[in-house]
């Protein structure tokens, strides 16, 4: 398995190289960050300032010089390049901080959506064509049809209405019980317990918002996968042997049904990262989504390139993890 992992990581390198070139080219043709930054200033910014800023952003170099210089800095120094917003901003530091924020959100959302999807998918498959199955099908399609920004805004307004209906629950700083912006309070409680509760409460709305988007598709997928396994010969044999239904479900059927789910879940990481852009904008979390929106609005080429490359790496990594999980879930799978 170790050799397999190393082989997969090495295979990812050309993929990431191609992705990096595409990201660099797209960002280069899309933005003139210096023009965007100084547009409309009255009085106009001195020409010397513009020239120095173009030099700082490497815009006075040829395209391939810029690309290979950027690549070299990433490989040798883990330097993602300068930010157009300010010379004090380090794209790498900001991006890595954004990753930790998004990782918290995405992990919580994925865990909740996968657990819920597996639970409801399994029960729906086991109790096919019952009221539970129909209800879960309806809920699944309902959430599938709802756009992410609408769910997020709806949840936010619902929380505000709840807070206004129960002002006695307001927090000591006067704000509503369920927070609607940021990943933590600007003026957090002093005690550790209060801080943990503060983190948790801030996680509620964005996690629900992201989870619902993923849950819908995953639950349908798990249901189909489970139904296929439940109708297979070896499960029929397990039942015929007199095993308890729970044992048949969990020890025999579920493990096999989870294999396609790992593929679906790893693909969901990419979708969740995309959904996080909207969720983080609505809830003002300073994660990767917010970073990308900010970078695009500011014409920050290196920021956008860094984001695309990092997102690509995360997706590739997610796929490798999914592949490795196959071996864990299905003993028949061995890696050469």
């Amino acid at each position: 398995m170790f050799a397999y992992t190393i082989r997969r990581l090495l295979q990812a390198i050309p993929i990431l190289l191609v992705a990096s070139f595409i990201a660099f080219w797209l960002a280069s043709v899309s933005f003139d960050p210096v023009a965007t930054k100084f547009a409309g200033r009255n009085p106009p910014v001195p020409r010397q300032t513009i020239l120095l800023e173009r030099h700082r952003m490497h815009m006075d170099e040829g395209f391939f010089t810029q690309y290979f210089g950027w690549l070299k800095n990433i490989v040798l120094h883990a330097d993602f390049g300068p930010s157009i917003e300010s010379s004090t901003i380090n794209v790498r530091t900001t991006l890595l901080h954004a990753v930790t924020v998004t990782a918290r959100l995405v992990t919580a959302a994925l865990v909740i959506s996968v657990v819920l999807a597996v639970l409801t998918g399994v029960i729906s498959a086991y109790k096919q064509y019952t009221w539970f199955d129909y209800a879960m099908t309806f809920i699944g399609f309902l959430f599938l049809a709802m756009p992410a920004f609408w769910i997020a805004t709806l949840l936010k307004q619902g929380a505000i209405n709840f807070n206004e209906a129960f002002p006695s629950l307001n927090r000591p700083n006067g704000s509503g019980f369920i927070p609607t912006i940021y990943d933590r309070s600007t003026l957090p409680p002093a005690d550790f317990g209060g801080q943990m509760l503060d983190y948790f409460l801030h996680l509620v709305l964005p996690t629900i918002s992201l989870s619902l988007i993923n849950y819908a598709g995953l639950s349908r997928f798990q249901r189909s996968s489970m139904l296929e396994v439940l109708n297979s010969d070896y499960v029929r044999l397990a039942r015929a042997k007199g095993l308890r239904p729970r044992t048949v479900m969990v020890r025999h059927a579920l493990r096999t049904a989870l294999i396609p789910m790992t593929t679906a879940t790893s693909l969901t990481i990419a979708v969740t990262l995309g959904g996080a852009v909207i969720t983080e904008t609505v809830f003002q979390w300073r994660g990767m989504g917010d970073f990308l929106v900010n970078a695009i609005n500011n014409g920050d080429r290196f920021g956008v390139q860094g984001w695309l490359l990092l997102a690509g790496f995360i997706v590739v990594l997610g796929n490798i993890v999914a592949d490795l999980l196959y071996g864990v879930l299905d003993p028949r799978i061995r890696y050469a």
Partner: protein
Amino acid sequence: MRTPKRLTGLVAIAAASLLVAGACSSKANNSGTTQQQNSFGYSECPSKPDTCNSGPRKQGGTIIAALGKKIQNFNIDASDGNLVESVEVMNAILPGAYTFLPSGKIAWNPDLFTEEPKVTNTSPQTVVYKIRPEAKWDDGTAINVDDFVYNWKLQDGHDKNILVAGTTGYDDITGVVGSDNGQTVTVTFKDPYSDWRGLFGSLYPAHIGAKAGDIKTDTGLEAAFKDMYKQPTWTGGAFKITAYDKATHVELVPNPAWYGRDKPTLDKIVYQFITDPKQQLPALQNKEINALNVQPSKDLYDGLKALNGVLYSITAGYSWEHIDLNTKNKWLADLALRTAIFDTISRQDIIDKTFKSYFPSAKPLGSHNFVSSANGYKDILSQVAPDQGNGKVDAAKKVLTDAGYTIVNGQLKDKTGANVGPLSFVHTGTVARAATSEVVVQELKQIGLTVTDKITDDLSTTLQTEAFDMILFGWGASPLLSPNADLWKTGGGNNFTQWGDASSDKLLADMTKELDLNKQIQMLNDQDVILTKAAVVMPITDKPNAMAVSDTYVNIRDNTAGSYFTYNTQSWGVKQS
């Protein structure tokens, strides 16, 4: 048991309806009619912009105000630090010579000076500042001539490695000299500079800069300039920055060494970065912030009206929308066609389609040099070109006919019989500008002119490369008047119409040297007559700005004149009940 399909469908409809109803729920309107754009508490602001929402304060309290951008550095003289939001934060930290009040008046700072700075000589122009002996930085160092010299040298443009946002005015100074133990500062200019009041508006401390390097040398100045990017651990204002999170907020507490007459009563001010303006209203509703200051929209207006316990105002700001014509275009080089185009377009129609729904008192703007709330505003358009911008199609057709144009089968033709147009109408694609474009395209059909809508996502390049025939964008104005010269003078850096006029240029050149404010205003209004008759730029209206604050606070009011709503943080406070 199988659930009947019909029941399943009904359940689906009911659930969806509940969700929609939840999303659309609103609270009772507490603040008047749909035409009202200022709530009770801010209703005096149109007539008393400098004193509305005044009141006695009680000691204590915290206010959380939203800012629309993150603060990336604290050097507001730098090209990448000169953002509105950075200035809003640093207003409470940096002492300055003059403040722009909400009314547009330029007020000298009586906390810093013993008397109003004076022009003591006009040739060469000499200005004298007398600093109060009480005015000190929080470490006890006196604010004196050293700070003036330091700020001059940083911004005079002599060192190209200092990426300053602008050098205008400072590059005209020939000397800054101190006397009376540095408390009297004498500034001399090589040429008359009429906007001298705009200089030294944000003083950085020289003695702090000297810690980064020898500020008498360029190397030291460069090091000091870079040092100014960092979070200040010092202050010369009413507040001091005590916490700063690059991603979320900055916190200020009162400066115990504050020397001003008005002492802060608040315990803390927090500026929270909420970069999506649509998220500021829900945050206000949820009491996660107490104040916001944004460009308004219909949704914002409706939302503010529905809130309890919030004061709001929507007022004409110091920026204005306008349509420019590129006189290098072979057709637009003709004055008759330009005149006819502007006569045909109705600015009221544009206002009705754009700002009217949330800013009922929006009016057509009649000046190219002053916003409607500015000192010196005169409706030049109504006096000089009453048909311009008023949808006078018949008058436009007469102008065209007299100039030899004809309209044949709905197509405008020039004197040679050739088709005129099509012309491009370029804008940045915002909702308001797209609506404006629709109006212009439709209305110009009446004179047989085809106009094609075109969106640019790089306005600056479009303007610089003249890649437009007609273009719609906005300018930010200021109580300082000399920047207007660059908008209209022949070859001016911000003159994108390619128009020029010798008489206009002379008036503008004289205006930038005129030290008497009233004469400056007269010169600009005279220049505006020439500009209006040339029909190269048509002002549409002032763009509105929205301010909202919880009604438990006093002395917080909008200020679009350039010092922004944080111009008087030392006076902010919790209302005394």
